[in-house]
């Protein structure tokens, strides 16, 4: 079979839309795999030669599709300067997504994308070693303080006056800066006139559902 025949048959195949879509998907999946491997997991095994070949095939693929994309974009009814702005944003976003790099305001949106192997501990508790706060209210009720809960309009107990974003931040910094978080919480609790405060390590038994509160000695911030 001569090279001309092979070339002609390849051309016939490429003329079919499903084939073009399948090839495009393959090339893009390969590109994403190679770029994200290089950025996030540089320790992974080197890529096989086939993946490098597929990467090279992106050059003719781009040469084929780029004029079509430009033609398509030039026909849409978005004003040209606005279109240029959107394209710039999309390209930056695509680069971040390919490289799995986050540079505000662009993001690969890889939230919880990392694989984790959780332990087999029977007791669930918050991460970090700072104790949880327990509020003994004047009416005799007892609340264990959850910053997420106090920021949640549906479930807040009213022990702290937080909005949702503030609750997020206090919880986020509970590990990084526990002293500052506790100071902020205690300050607000005393401002609001709540009763006695305790510190405890709160854990939930995953098997039985039982909640355990082990008192922790008061640690002055």
């Amino acid at each position: 079979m001569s090279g001309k025949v092979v070339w002609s048959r390849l051309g016939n195949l490429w003329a079919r839309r499903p084939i073009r879509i399948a090839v495009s998907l393959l090339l893009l999946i390969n590109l994403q795999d190679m770029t994200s491997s290089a950025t996030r997991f540089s320790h992974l095994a080197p890529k096989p030669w086939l993946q490098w070949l597929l990467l090279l095939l992106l050059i003719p693929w781009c040469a084929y599709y780029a004029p079509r994309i430009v033609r398509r974009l030039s026909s849409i009814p978005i004003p040209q300067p606005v279109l240029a702005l959107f394209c710039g944003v999309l390209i930056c976003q695509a680069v971040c997504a390919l490289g799995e790099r986050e540079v505000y305001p662009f993001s690969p949106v890889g939230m919880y994308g990392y694989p984790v192997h959780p332990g087999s501990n029977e007791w669930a508790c918050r991460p970090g070693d700072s104790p949880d706060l327990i509020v003994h209210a004047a009416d005799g009720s007892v609340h264990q303080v959850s910053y997420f809960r106090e920021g949640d309009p549906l479930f807040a107990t009213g022990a702290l006056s937080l909005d949702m974003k503030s609750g997020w931040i206090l919880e986020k910094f509970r590990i990084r800066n526990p002293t500052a978080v506790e100071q902020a919480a205690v300050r607000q609790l005393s401002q609001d006139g709540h009763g006695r405060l305790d510190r405890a390590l709160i854990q939930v038994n995953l098997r039985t559902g039982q909640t355990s509160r082990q008192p922790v000695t008061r640690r002055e911030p």
Partner: protein
Amino acid sequence: MNGMGASRRDGFFDRLHWSGSARHLALIRIVVGLHLLQWVFRSDYLTYVDEMSAGSAPLYWSVIPASWMTASVAQTLQWIGFLACTLMIIGLCTRVVTVLTTVSFLLTNHFYYIYTGNHDDWLYFNFILLTLCCARCADAWSLDAWWRSTRSSAAGTCHNSQMYRWPVEVMMAWFCLLYVEAGIAKLFPLEHGMAWFTGGTIQSVAITRLLDSPIYWWFGRALFDYRLQWPFVLMAIVSVVVELSALIPLITSRWNAAVFAAVMALHIGIYSVGVPGFPQIALACGCLFLRPEWFGDCRPHLGSVAHDQRGPTDRLPLAA
């Protein structure tokens, strides 16, 4: 060809050429503004970021230099954003205040992000606000439109109705792409994508956030023994399928309602295991999925050939 047949194409690029609704775009402006006012500009979060991160260097990267933004500047910008956002909702000097809202939102979230690394509103609304800045979002349900109509009966009319459609489609495409990207990020690199399907990540979140989850607040315990693996494998598969299904609205609008319902269900599920903040964002973005025809000021689109024949016939007076 009237384009209304069952075979008409309704992909993203086709829909950009269709007629839109000034009221739909105005509704998006108002809903986005109300969301930002309630959850971002009225929040004390910048005070807490400043207090908690005092003295420490920023931990996350931004294209905006960290030195440009101090806590006091961020808080001033938040006030400006609050005022601008209020004016954006009522539609007074809309173009200017939308730009002001966008700039203050972008910069205050820069300050928030570089110290916390949190992803929430900014992922969605930076681009949505940017689009609103470039769109005619005050041609209905705004003081500007009312003021123009009192000065001249011709003012505010005779705009190409595509001008109301493309911003909505572009914003919806952004919303969908965020989920597709989230799905892709979980799958790649392929060697680790398979590991994600063990469900370990969701299991870990469910366990470490148990005390901070609505499930615990409601029932006082976990729903089941979270050491079981298979429910989390199922959740991992479902979450990736839902995220990748967000590609469908870019191909056809027929499944918009189903895709949006799946995304909402995903967020409610994630919220129930202790990741708050997203159901209300998705709900606010839900107005992007409404059909412009429902607003009563959108003419039936002319089909796929219409975009090459724009002219006086594609212009319509705006409903008051």
